[in-house]
């Protein structure tokens, strides 16, 4: 054991020096962390802009004069009414108008007769970004109908309550922070990706690269155990991956602070404790990511092949994050032990202002570290094989 540690040191030191001087390794470590906060900024910006544009909703109406009551209702809801000529369908289709309201020529007569008076809300359902706007417009128009029918029922001496035999109340028990955490579920995704992306090139360069450049054979002639060599390479990869994690986190916090999240009804409280918890939760994943990447790159027949395998591998830990973005993650206890799924759960809870408990950290971190170590031992075992050391040519 003492021998092992004595040999890990020089390998670690040399690989760190080599990787820091390698532009490609530095780029893959630093580029993604810069890209992630920009993505977050863009995402939030789009969502915020959408919410804000719903407030500036303008009703382009044809036949406003036929429905003065409806128009007054719209204006009382603080939305502008603009009388508009031409083919409304065409103008919505071309994107010139976001939506339009067409009052039926028979509206006034039908309304007076108490028959359903027709109003057409013309929208383009293929434009996702307009859906908050459309929702709001529909709500304003429907609320007018409800209001009128209530008045009519009262005028006829009928209680409007008859219209609601069942009163449905939806009570959301999530705190506003938890709702934010759902909304912020892609932040864990970026942090988890950093664990896989930032050390990637180091893992490939120190294994497949070392063999391809012919420096593996001289290295292995030294009286050093394969374990010590692989552990040294592993730790340097972990350092790069961890730097990536820290940078993504720092960039994300910086972005969140600059943005006015209150507009979105989101509250994010990330203090020093949360930062420590997030790092303690994700750095163990870097040990697994590095281990798997070393194993795969050592097994690959060339540098290029290793690159293909390792970059495909990045998509695996993204799956839980993707699932979390569209639905909820399972909450069974075993989930914590599944690498990257466990981290996703852990980070979501930390960002939601929860204390996940020490046990969850230990299970999630421990399983990743152990699996990472297993990969390292397998890699060291591969390095004892002639086919791996000298390539297939021999």
């Amino acid at each position, binding site marked *: 054991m003492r021998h092992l540690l004595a040999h890990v040191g*020089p390998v670690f*030191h040399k690989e760190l020096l*080599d990787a820091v001087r390698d532009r490609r390794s530095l780029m893959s470590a630093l580029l993604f962390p810069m890209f992630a906060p920009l993505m977050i900024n863009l995402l939030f910006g789009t969502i915020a802009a959408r919410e804000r544009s719903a407030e500036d909703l303008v009703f382009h109406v044809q036949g406003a004069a036929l429905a003065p009551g409806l128009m007054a209702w719209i204006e009382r809801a603080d939305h502008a009414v603009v009388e508009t000529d031409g083919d409304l369908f065409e103008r919505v289709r071309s994107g010139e108008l976001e939506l339009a309201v067409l009052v039926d020529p028979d509206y006034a007569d039908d309304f007076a007769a108490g028959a359903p008076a027709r109003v057409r809300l013309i929208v383009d359902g293929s434009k996702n970004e307009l859906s908050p706007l459309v929702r709001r417009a529909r709500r304003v128009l429907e609320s007018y109908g409800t209001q009128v029918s209530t008045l009519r029922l009262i005028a006829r001496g009928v209680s409007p309550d008859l219209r609601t035999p069942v009163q449905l109340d939806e009570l959301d028990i999530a705190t506003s922070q938890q709702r934010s955490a759902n909304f912020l579920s892609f932040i864990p995704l970026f942090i988890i990706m950093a664990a896989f992306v930032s050390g990637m090139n180091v893992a490939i360069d120190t294994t497949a690269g070392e063999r391809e*450049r012919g*420096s593996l054979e001289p290295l292995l002639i030294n*009286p*050093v155990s394969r374990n010590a060599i692989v552990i040294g390479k592993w730790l340097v990869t972990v350092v790069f991956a961890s730097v990536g994690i820290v940078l993504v986190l720092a960039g994300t916090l910086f972005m969140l602070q600059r943005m006015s999240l209150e507009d979105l009804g989101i509250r994010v409280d990330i203090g020093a404790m949360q930062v420590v918890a997030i790092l303690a939760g994700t750095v163990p994943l870097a040990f697994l990511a590095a281990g798997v990447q070393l194993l795969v790159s050592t097994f690959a027949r060339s540098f290029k092949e290793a690159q293909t395998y390792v970059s495909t591998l990045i998509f695996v830990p993204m799956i839980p994050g993707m699932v979390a973005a569209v639905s909820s993650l399972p909450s069974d206890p075993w989930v914590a032990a599944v690498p990257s799924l466990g981290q996703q759960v852990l980070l979501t809870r930390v960002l939601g202002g929860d204390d996940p408990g020490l046990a969850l950290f230990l299970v999630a971190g421990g399983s990743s570290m152990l699996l990472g170590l297993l990969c390292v031992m397998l890699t060291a075992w591969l390095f004892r094989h*002639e086919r791996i*050391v000298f390539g297939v040519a021999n």
Partner: protein
Amino acid sequence: MIEVRNLGKRFGEVVAVDDVSFAAADGKVTGLLGPNGAGKTTTLRVLYGLLLADRGDVLVDDINVTTEPQRAQRHMGVLPDSRGLYVRLTAREHLRYYGRLQGLTAALVEERIERLVGQLEMGTIIDRRVQGFSQGERVKVAVGRALVHAPSNVLLDEPTNGLDVGATRAMRHLIRQMRADGKCVLFSSHIMQEVTALCDHLVIISGGRTVVQGTPEEILTTTGHESLEDAFVSLTGIDEVVA
């Protein structure tokens, strides 16, 4: 001292080394001579512990390489077939890395580096990154890191391959110097002139077998040839190809 007894090594169906035996003594230069594909590199790789022999014994300073590879590796300095250097490291960083891997203390490594810089005339390149080094400069770095732990046995696989005249002469000078220091020097080559110029002891292998060994004079006497080249050609069966 190096001893190889009845070494055999195959890769799947291909027999790389069939039956090789020889001894290389301290204070002597031993040449492993054979045509391309004779099994020289495979023999050396078994010797420095990277390939496992199917058959036979390999001893370095009486240490069995098969059972105690790491102990044996401490007694060997090797210039392997692939010289592979790290282009982003300086020559000094190469020597330091290998010295540390050999278990030398930091102070001792620095002392050895200073000595090697003088011995190999690396003064102008020692603190430059290897990127852009000439072939000769690269070999100096590779030789330097093989010698940083002052091994008693030195294994050189085709040491003058790709070197120009000046660098080849420097390499010969170094080999003679190591012999004078009492080291056991074993080098492989497929170039006759190379071997005749340097070797005290000659081992000719062909088709994975030791064909003949001894001093150059002994080989001439046993084979009855006028020159070593004639002996080499007839023993390795190259003439059959030519004719």
